[in-house]
């Protein structure tokens, strides 16, 4: 297992380098321009100067190597310096990966946006799992019952209705139709500067998280509950379940100890593989509720042709996806003793 992990980790290095190069090429070939969204009153000559000041005058391989150096050498060095409060070499003149639109280090932007993304998108993932597992278990156990039918219907609805519709409907219901003096009123705009310091500010935080979390949780739960149900159904018809019942075990033990543990193996893998999506944010939901997390950062970067920002963000997502694939494989090995990688 250990050797396998090391081997896989080593293999990720060329994979990630290749991914970063492909992302860079794709972004460079895309017909986009960082000065494209500026007002028309800025003359073409000035635009050309702006492009050169952004480094677009250099050939592509130079720009790629520069990005590699900034991301793999300068950024880690800066992190180490900040954590331990030391200075390594010429920190003053070491260039970090800079966003073109904000002219500030991309990694700082990512760190600034992490809290709201983790709170809202992460919480919705947790809530989604908490809703999905019981629904999946009961639906499978009471196969074709009214509960199963309703569960199937709700997950189909959650899966097929896009979040931009559910989000807008919730805003109309809770922010527009309900008067703002009512305790049930919910804000339609997320305040990222809000700090939880006491009970009342905690209530405000819960209120502003309620709508985006519910929208995303419905979507996540829809998907996971179907997985859970299918996996439970597979196991319920296995011979060992009949054996357990024949031995006179209580139904609760059969279901929750024998069947559930075995059914969870594929579900845990699916959950692990979905974690990078949490970091990726939920582009549409973040836009609707103005949560302004990582998803919104990415979309603004794409619209404004902020290539260093998009490059760095997509690459971070790629790293997370590769890592969580590895983690999913390892969890699989731990949960199911029959699987051995060595």
């Amino acid at each position, binding site marked *: 297992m250990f050797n396998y992990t090391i081997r896989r980790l080593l293999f990720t290095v060329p994979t990630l380098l290749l991914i970063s190069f492909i992302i860079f090429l794709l972004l460079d070939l895309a017909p986009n321009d960082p000065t494209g969204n500026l007002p028309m009153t800025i003359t073409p000559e000035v635009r050309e*100067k702006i492009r050169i*000041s952004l480094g677009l005058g250099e050939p592509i391989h130079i720009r790629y190597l520069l990005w590699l150096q900034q991301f793999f050498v300068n950024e880690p060095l800066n992190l180490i310096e900040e954590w331990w409060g030391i200075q390594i070499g010429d920190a003053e003149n070491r260039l970090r990966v800079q966003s073109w639109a*904000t002219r500030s280090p991309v990694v700082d932007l990512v760190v600034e946006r992490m809290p709201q993304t983790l709170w809202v998108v992460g919480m919705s993932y947790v809530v989604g799992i908490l809703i999905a597992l019981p629904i999946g278990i009961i639906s499978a156990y009471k196969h074709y019952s009214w509960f199963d039918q309703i569960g199937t219907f709700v997950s189909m609805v959650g899966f097929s209705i896009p979040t931009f519709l559910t989000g807008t409907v919730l805003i109309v219901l809770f*922010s527009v139709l309900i008067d703002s003096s009512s305790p049930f009123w919910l804000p339609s*705009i997320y305040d990222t500067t809000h700090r939880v310091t006491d009970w009342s*500010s905690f209530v405000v935080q819960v209120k502003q998280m309620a709508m985006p979390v519910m929208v995303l949780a419905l979507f996540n739960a829809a998907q996971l509950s179907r997985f859970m149900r299918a996996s439970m159904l597979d196991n319920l018809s296995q011979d060992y379940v009949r054996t357990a019942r024949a031995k006179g075990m209580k139904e609760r033990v059969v279901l929750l100890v024998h069947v559930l543990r075995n059914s969870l193996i594929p579900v845990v893998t699916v959950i692990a593989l979905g974690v990078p999506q949490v970091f990726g944010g939920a582009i549409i939901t973040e836009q609707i509720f103005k949560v302004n997390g990582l998803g919104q950062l990415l979309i603004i970067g794409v619209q404004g042709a902020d290539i260093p920002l998009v490059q760095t963000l997509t690459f971070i997502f790629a790293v997370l996806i590769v890592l969580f694939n590895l983690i999913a494989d390892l969890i699989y090995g731990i949960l199911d003793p029959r699987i051995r990688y060595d």
Partner: protein
Amino acid sequence: MSVLKKTLLATAAALLTTTAAHAERGSDGHLNIIYWQASSILNPFLSGGTKDVEASSMVIEPLGRYDEKGNLIPWLAVDIPTVANGGVSEDLKSITWKIQPGIKWSDGSDFTAEDVVFTADYCMHPEGGCQQLTKFADVEKVEALDALTVKVTFSKPKPHPYGPFTGGESPIIQKAQFQDCMGAKAPECTEQNFGPNGTGPFRVTEFRANDVISMEANPNYRDASKPHFATLTFKGGGDAAAAARSVLQTGEFDYAWNLQVDPTVLADMASAGKGQVVSAFGTSVERLMVNLTNPDSALGDQRSTVEGGPHPFLTDAAVRRALSLAIDRQTLSDVGYGEAGQPTCNVLPAPAIFASTANDECLVQNIDLANQILDEAGWAKGGDGIRAKDGVRLSILYQTSTNAVRQDTQALVKQWWGQIGVETELKNIDAAVFFGGDQSSPDTFQKFYADIEMYTNNFNGTDPEKYMSNWTCGEIPSPATNWLGSNMPRYCNEAYDALAAKLAQTSAIDERAAIAKQMNDMLMQEGAMIPLIHRGGVSAHSNTLGGVLMNEWDSELWNVADWHRTN
């Protein structure tokens, strides 16, 4: 301290001081502003985007700026220098600004002429990539004559010498703060660019790029009773409809900017009674650019260039007039713009003294006349209903950027042109690509590989000299100039160039107006462009917010110091 808590405290404070009737700074509590395009940076020299210029206009200020009627008024200066008051030299080559005494930066230090000189050096640095460089065109040197006097010398006579240091795009930054940020260092000064010291009514307390800015009243602001608000939140993100909703329906925000939303949707939201929609008109005109050169792909590198030869049918004045007459501009305005649009037949619609009335034929749609003109010019309808002459069919490729209103306009125009026997193919391109300057992309508006293209253009301030020179021969984009240039129709007329040169040497305002009108009429009557809509800005503010004076000539937030709470 949370925003909520601040709000509560401030409201409590406001309640205690209501008797003072807005006499005190910060007595009106908290102000919420939403710009659905989030601000990325508070240094307008590094980002010319409107959202960034306007956000920063609450913090840093120019010497002179435009009021809501388009008049140039002194801001940090004592007065507006003119030839009459001796501020502008007789040869029109220099302008001398006198700064108001006693102005302080938000850090408490004195605002001096050195800061103004530094600002010019900062923007004109060759490696800085300054986005407002156009403002400093032809500036030879900027010098401080004494602590409160600045002299700008130009390399040639400038009849309109109000480029540098006027308007929201050309504010003054503090020398002490930015002196290590010159040239190539400019983008690395994140701290300065996110929190500039200013002379304006507010100062930055927290800046989150592309998300939200928190500000508080500047304790050193020159008017002790202003601003009325103690703190403000400048939120970004989402879309125009959501921003409108947050002011007009949910009441969470006090002011929302640039609400290009379906007019009926906006009117519906406004009927909730929580706020009102305000609009103002500047110089923006949505227009069709007519390609006078041949965009045929068979021409290869010579496509859409003067060398590639004239357009097969758009060079015929009858065709261009018919195309313009077939359009119902009032309907376009009602469908797409509502309060934010009015039909126009001029590419230079404002200020009023520059607006011509010579082209008003196009204000009323006249399909019959358009058909008649084409018949008389010998364009006969073929079996498919499309007109042709000598084997040339009236078939148009009509491109624009991707945007719901523009696509509605395209569809309507296509239908009307169909009625006069003109075939239209529609195309839309993502704005960042269309307006971008990527040399490898065939879809940029400069390359113009189409017959007609549509977009909006305008000019800053109130003087059209630079804008009208966009259509001189030297401005034609071509491979030789890397497709740089603003003359999209590839219009070239010696008489027009002569007028442009004359405008650059005339200083009397009436004469300038006469020349500019003549240039506008020339462009219109020779059909280089087909103007559609004079576009205004639309914003919304809460019924409890007073003092808003919508301004299209400068930043919309130009008088934020006067904004106050009404009950």
